[in-house]
């Protein structure tokens, strides 16, 4: 005899289907969340390593650390012309821009008469980075999505101590904040001037 579903059978079928669909949805959500967490962890690891390497390669070869603030560090990259004095073209700076939430390296593009000489006092002055910011320069992005940055410098004592730049960066990724904390020691002793 052929007959259709009764009302009870239909209800049971619907309930069963709903349960199965709920379980499937929960499972898919779990897969998606895990997948994302795995990707985020790998991206954070790569980002942390890259940031460390970029900052290491920038600071390690520098001659000296100049005046700095909690969001900017001025450096004397190298004595390119060997005159044992600092020229604008030999400087560079690492800065954090809170408005754009980016970390950048800046390299002056001055030459000739515009390539002024900096005294030691000017170089180490706390406002040196703001003087530097008035120079024409090219900028290179180091890290984006930086919600907060804090730099500290430890110059050390003694002729053989090497200055250290400490960085504490908070990077936002999908509303989650990851912290990149590290430090880089210069490979030259303090105050080569």
């Amino acid at each position, binding site marked *: 005899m052929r007959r259709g579903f009764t009302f009870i059978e239909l209800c049971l079928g619907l309930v069963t289907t709903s349960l199965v669909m709920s379980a499937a949805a929960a499972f898919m959500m779990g897969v998606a969340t895990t997948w994302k967490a795995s990707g985020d*962890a790998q991206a954070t690891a790569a980002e942390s390593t890259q940031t460390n390497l970029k900052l290491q390669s920038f600071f390690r070869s520098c001659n000296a650390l100049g005046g700095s603030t909690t969001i900017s560090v001025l450096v004397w990259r190298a004595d390119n012309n060997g005159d044992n004095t600092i020229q604008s073209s030999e400087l560079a700076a690492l800065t954090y821009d809170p408005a754009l939430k980016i970390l950048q390296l800046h390299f002056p593009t001055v030459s000739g008469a515009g390539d002024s000489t900096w005294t030691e006092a000017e170089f180490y002055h706390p406002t040196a980075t703001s003087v530097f910011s008035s120079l024409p320069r090219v900028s290179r992005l180091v890290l984006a999505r930086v919600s907060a940055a804090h730099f*500290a410098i430890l110059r050390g004592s003694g002729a053989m101590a090497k200055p250290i730049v*400490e960085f504490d960066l908070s990077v936002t990724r999908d509303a989650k904040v990851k*912290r990149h904390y*590290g*430090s880089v020691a210069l490979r030259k002793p303090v105050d080569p001037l």
Partner: protein
Amino acid sequence: MEKPTPVINPHGRQAKRSNGVTLMESLIASVVLSIAVVGIAGTLVATSQQAQDVDDSTIVNSLARELMEEVVAKPFKAPVTGDVAGWTGGNTNRKTYDNLNDFHAYADISPFQSLGGRSIDPGTGQTYTREVQIEDRLSPSIPWLDDEPAMLGLGSALDAAGRLIADPSGTLRSICFGEIVGPAAIGTATEVPAEYRMVSVKVVSSSGKSVILNRLMCNTTFTK
């Protein structure tokens, strides 16, 4: 209405009329489904755990590198005058350390105090501990250290006692930060006693992740 003819199977018995799913069948189906779900959930948990492990490893490595940079920035030898006490001398403020050995036996636990005076908490819910050990290596006892000069193409730069000597071309070289420093010509076959210290930084998280970084430091008096 005509009655339906009963179905007879090949064994001559009357087949049971199919009347939906029995309780037993649905229970068996549920058990099979549960086993499948538990199995799949297990892989999800494992993947999630792996993501946390990657996170933890990143932090552990980063903390170790950070402390290593602080240690290697210190001069090899203590200043002749005005030497500040290190960790073993009861000075817990690492900002004031003035030579490598001041870090010997140093230990701290998260949240860490940064050089800039900030509290550094990795924010993972884990606790991290850091330790530093510094050993004199006048006579290298570990195999890779004995092999390193050869790997760096220095020939017999270190003698059996671990002292720095001239390479076959008669040029003095020394190894600092794992790099060849020099050359500094001082004649041939000159033997110079060198001092080496092995710096080890160990970081362990409460989840069990750990890393040990080693770096061989030499007295930079011998660099050019």
